[in-house]
């Protein structure tokens, strides 16, 4: 339900005729926040009683664990992406890219490596790139590759798969391959009127410091909210679905690949944390895990919502299925060669 929150701004506009909100009329969010915190403290013991069953407790533990584990990575990525967004002029990207779009696509794809954020951070940056005149095909290759091939994510992958450097290499190559393929596909088939240019600058401020901290704040709140959503679904899966269930899917090669591809979409885990979840899916083949790692950063529920918000729903509805299909194919191909 929270996914709909990120729908295009039109959904959030209050009905015509109603005067612009006056502070006195609306329930202000600091007030709501205070009430929620107070109520939670007052209702402590009934809440604890409700959550006392072993199943609920293990759900809570996994939920808190995924969140706590991913937050430092999220903060790191958001800091760096705010630094790049504020202190590196966008015109630099336009100058740095080759004139020919067919060449600009792979260059932008590789350039994704310099944005050490998760997919939540790359969507606004890609939107800004399109606005400042970068060819959409190149911006989209950047959008898809950045969350998967940047150093932070690759390091996390290496940490999650100790002794398996081929997993890191496979993730890098497959993600780059799929990102470039999607860029070229957009260049051939894409139409500009599918793209709705973003209406506003993502983070504007009077000074660079204000823009920087504004970007950090916005990204942590936004991406953090979706991270919590991902942690909740991951914990639900871990606590509710019997291990034997995934085990059955893991036994059949084709089903296991599709199962993990769908899982990556549904779980919506931040790309900086998904390697650890993939590593914990021990019953699955390395190729199926690679599919999970390649599909997750490119398309999942929260990304779909964010893309629809930034580029328009018509774009997201065409872009998402194509990305999913190409990502699965690219990962299986890479897995067959490398793993």
């Amino acid at each position, binding site marked *: 339900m*929270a996914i709909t*929150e*990120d729908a295009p*701004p039109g959904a959030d506009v209050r009905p015509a005729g109603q005067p612009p*909100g006056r502070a006195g009329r609306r329930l*202000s*969010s*600091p007030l*709501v*926040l205070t009430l929620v*915190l107070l109520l939670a403290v007052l209702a402590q013991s009934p*809440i604890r009683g409700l*959550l006392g069953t*072993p*199943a609920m*407790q*293990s759900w*809570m*533990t*996994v*939920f*808190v*664990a*995924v969140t*706590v*584990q991913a*937050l*430092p990575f*999220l*903060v*790191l990525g958001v800091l760096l992406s705010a630094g790049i967004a504020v202190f590196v002029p966008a015109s630099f990207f336009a100058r740095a890219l080759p004139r020919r779009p067919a060449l600009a696509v792979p260059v932008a794809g590789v350039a994704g490596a310099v944005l050490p954020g998760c997919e939540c951070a790359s969507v606004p940056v890609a939107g800004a790139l399109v606005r400042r005149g970068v060819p959409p095909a190149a911006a989209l290759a950047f959008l898809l590759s950045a969350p998967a091939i940047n150093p932070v994510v690759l390091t996390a992958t290496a*940490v*999650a798969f*100790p002794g398996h450097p081929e997993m890191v290499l496979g993730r890098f190559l497959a993600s780059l391959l799929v990102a470039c393929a999607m860029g070229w596909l957009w260049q051939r088939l894409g139409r500009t009127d599918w793209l709705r240019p973003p*209406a506003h600058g993502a983070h504007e*401020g009077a000074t660079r*410091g*204000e823009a920087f*901290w*504004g970007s*950090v*704040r*916005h990204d*942590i*709140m936004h991406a*953090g*909210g979706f991270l*919590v*959503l991902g*942690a*909740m679904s991951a*914990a639900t899966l*871990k606590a509710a679905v019997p*291990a*034997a269930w995934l*085990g059955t899917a893991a036994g059949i090669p084709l089903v296991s690949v599709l199962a993990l591809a769908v899982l990556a979409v549904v779980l919506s885990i931040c790309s900086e944390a998904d390697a*650890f979840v993939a*590593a*914990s899916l*021990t019953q699955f083949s390395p190729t199926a895990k690679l599919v999970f790692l390649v599909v997750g950063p490119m398309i999942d529920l929260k990304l779909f919502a964010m893309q629809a918000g930034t580029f328009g729903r018509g774009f997201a509805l065409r872009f998402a299925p194509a990305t999913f299909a190409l990502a699965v194919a690219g990962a299986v191909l890479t897995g067959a060669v490398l793993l």
Partner: protein
Amino acid sequence: MNRQAQAAVLFLLGAVLLHAGATDLALRYVKADLRPLLLLSGAVLIATALATAWYERRRGRRSGPREHAHPEPRVAWLLLLPLLALILIAPPALGSYSALRSGTALQKPYAYGPLPDGDPVPLSVVDYASRAAYGHGRSLHGRPVRVTGFLALDRSGAAYLVRMALNCCAADAQPVKIALTGKLPPVLRPDAWLEVTGRYTPRLTHDPVNDGPVPYLEVTSVRPVPVPSDPYDETWNN
């Protein structure tokens, strides 16, 4: 959520991360190596909260309250959930419920290190289980051992001593189990932490979940112990 409320949430989140990273609380959820990163990100969150509050005050002075150009993300309200979970409930480390739902993660070791000194020999659950299951207990030289873990009881009432092994966070924690036989206390409570002294016995059973090997331990004495500061076995990280 407006910016003042966001500053408050960021501040609380940072404070909770600092608290968890500075105490053993974080060890219930993540590996020990992550603690410095937790402290660092907690500090950054607090700095962001202070910067937000400061710029918001300046903006208020400059132009008075105004409508923001675009709505602030409402999904951010979800950040209250982990905050409340950590402040109010602080869920315990994974216990017998999770241990019985997944199969034992015991792997054949490359080699057995020398036995530590002491009588009985202090061993980890993983160490005893791999020596007993894969080495037929030969590397134990018939010496009594002392193992610490928590208790899990399966449907038939059989008792297991378990330790969860962890790579990164509790989401990837997997149990390693030893089946207990011999002199057990009459009343067994699941999730109780026990220090078990006993001897190797060649009996071996298989985990019903994944058919992994679960060796037995012939118990001679049992002592309840408090939960260790790091409830997980992190030897696989090193």
